[in-house]
């Protein structure tokens, strides 16, 4: 099974991400989105699975402040 995941980062305005991954996201796990290290807060099904794909929505929070560009 592959997981197509919509990541939304709460808090400061930061871009979320869409990532395809082999392992399901787990609450409390950390993930790198661009330059931001995030912790997963919530995992939900977004769409019914199709074929080998599951479609998930993940809410996460940044673990470190983002430097202004």
């Amino acid at each position, binding site marked *: 099974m*592959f997981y*197509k995941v*919509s990541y*939304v980062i*709460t*808090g400061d*305005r*930061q*871009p*979320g*991400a*869409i*990532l*395809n*991954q*082999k392992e399901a996201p787990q609450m409390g796990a950390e993930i790198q*989105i*661009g*330059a931001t290290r995030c912790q997963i807060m919530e995992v939900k099904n*977004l*769409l019914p699975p199709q*074929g*080998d*794909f599951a*479609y998930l*929505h993940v*809410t996460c929070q940044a673990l470190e402040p983002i430097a202004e*560009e």
Partner: protein
Amino acid sequence: MSVKLEVLSHTDLFIGLSKEQALNLAACGEEEIYHQDEVIMQRGERGENICIVLTGQIKVEPEEGYDLVILGAGQGFGEMSILDAGPRSATIRCATPEAKLLRIPGPALLAFCEEHCCAGYQIMYNLARDLTFKLRHRNLDIYSANQEG
């Protein structure tokens, strides 16, 4: 051209294609490597190809300094200009120290779809599903931001 089948198997564009079809389509493209913040596509320019992220991440920047979304391995981008012949609507930059892409020329993709009708239908369906997923993601992002006030 040596895109690994393992990578293609979790790439949206190739869902439902046979291994042979996926490899033949991938063979239409070229692999490219980009480095942190390097521009991959420029907003406003004519779009003539679609890209698939093989490794690393890229960021979509509709206006300077505003990153809309980050896309990782398996994700495609640049499809809008292939479908509607309009200019690029956002600048795309590399968001990780390195990102490897597969760049497929639009005319080659469309020719493949015409030549292999069933696979072509599947590819167009995959593109449509991917676009709807991106819209859903965008809506969730807006909803989340509004909930926070």
